[in-house]
């Protein structure tokens, strides 16, 4: 359905690989607009996640983008902006 190169499914996979999931959180529900904090992911988990995204997609995500993207929707959007800029450049 998505034409975006980086999807919520990609993010879920990377979250699970790098940081696992909390006992009381089901990533298969609609998590797009939930805060990462409520999903059990702290700042270090997001650092690990961004580092895995950077490695996989060959991009660099700045700390400020990471700090502002407090939900999966925001992070997926930010990563796709990066990828679009790289493609245009």
């Amino acid at each position: 359905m998505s034409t975006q190169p980086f999807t919520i499914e990609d993010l879920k996979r990377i979250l699970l690989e790098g940081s696992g999931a909390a006992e009381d959180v089901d990533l298969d529900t609609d998590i797009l607009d939930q805060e990462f904090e409520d999903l059990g992911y702290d700042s270090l988990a997001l650092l690990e996640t961004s580092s895995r995204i950077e490695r996989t997609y060959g991009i660099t995500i700045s700390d400020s983008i990471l700090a502002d993207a407090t939900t999966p929707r925001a992070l997926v959007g930010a990563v796709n902006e990066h990828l679009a800029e790289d493609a245009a450049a």
Partner: protein
Amino acid sequence: MTTSVVITGLGVAAPNGLGKEDFWEATREGRSGIGPLTRFDGSGYPAKLAGEVPGFDAKEHLPSRLLPQTDRMTRLALVATDWALADAGIKPQEAEGFEMGVVTASSSGGFEFGQNELRKLWSKGSQHVSAYQSFAWFYAVNSGQISIRNGMKGPSGVLVSDQAGGLDAVAHARRQIRKGTGMIVSGSIDASVCPWGWVAQLASGRLSTVEDPARAYLPFDPRAAGHVAGEGGAMLILEQADKARRRGARIYGEVAGYGATFDPKPGSGAEPGLRKAIELALADAGTAPGDVDVVFADAAAVPELDRAEADAINTVFGPRAVAVTAPKTMTGRLYSGAAPLDLATALLAMESGLIPPSTNTEPDPALGLDLVTGDARPARVNTALVLARGHGGFNSAVLLRTAPTG
């Protein structure tokens, strides 16, 4: 009057038994957990035997959120803590966070986790190092993770003094309880059976290179030639005695006395500090040497250190005057995990009226020790002294006593 501090819960992860029941069954029957290394290929190393904790699958016990950020020692410690809390009948989520603390010991931190991340650093580059390496290797990580998992916001810390640290942590936990905290999770689990940890331990020059599991670790034996390294230990629940009694808890015993000393400068010829540590622990407990029923020895299996330990015991108690045992002959030396495991063993010995044996070793009669070998020895055990020495000069002693009633 000083607050009496008691132990009300035990969580055990040992090479000869996962969980208190398995461990005690193996230990009283003299069953060893020492065998060939399986966690990595040991064929290229001089020491090829280890005491490895069997059958532990962290995924069965912990949420996947914790697995990418924990070393094996932390996983074992988290699960052993869960067991210890359950054994004590404590539900931490129902308790006040500031009333609970965590004080553990560590001798090397999360070596295996660190090894894997350093390998990635050198082979693939810094981008490939886990963000969790920032704490997963760290000495204090077990205290931190136990505290986070259980919402324990009271006094917390870690003691780093090699094998002696396991007793120093329990003593510090007792200190924090006397200052007013109701309950502290203490003890220690260590685990660095990985190539990097192995090389670090080999550097001590004290690892046995004997390849027969029945002859590799023989403390107090004329054939003693170093120790086998192991992983594991025990987590203990310490509480104010009054509080434990009020809630009707089962009390294993009281942490009645503690003493710690440091050895003199090497080569000075001065007496090692172990005797003084024993005397301090007895004095702290107000116990006479004749009242001690059993000594759990440090059991270095290095001839000079064995002699020093026998001398210290004989000077305080008299030759062959007190039963001595070293169940760690069945686990190998567990570094900071060893002494908490000995504390747990001593409490189980009190409960069952059995002193577990030291296995394989045939003690040198010249050392003058009444070492319990062969089968477990039936005995009334009201008072047990646990000794631990750390590489570099640390000596610690803890005296356990059946808790006074009322």
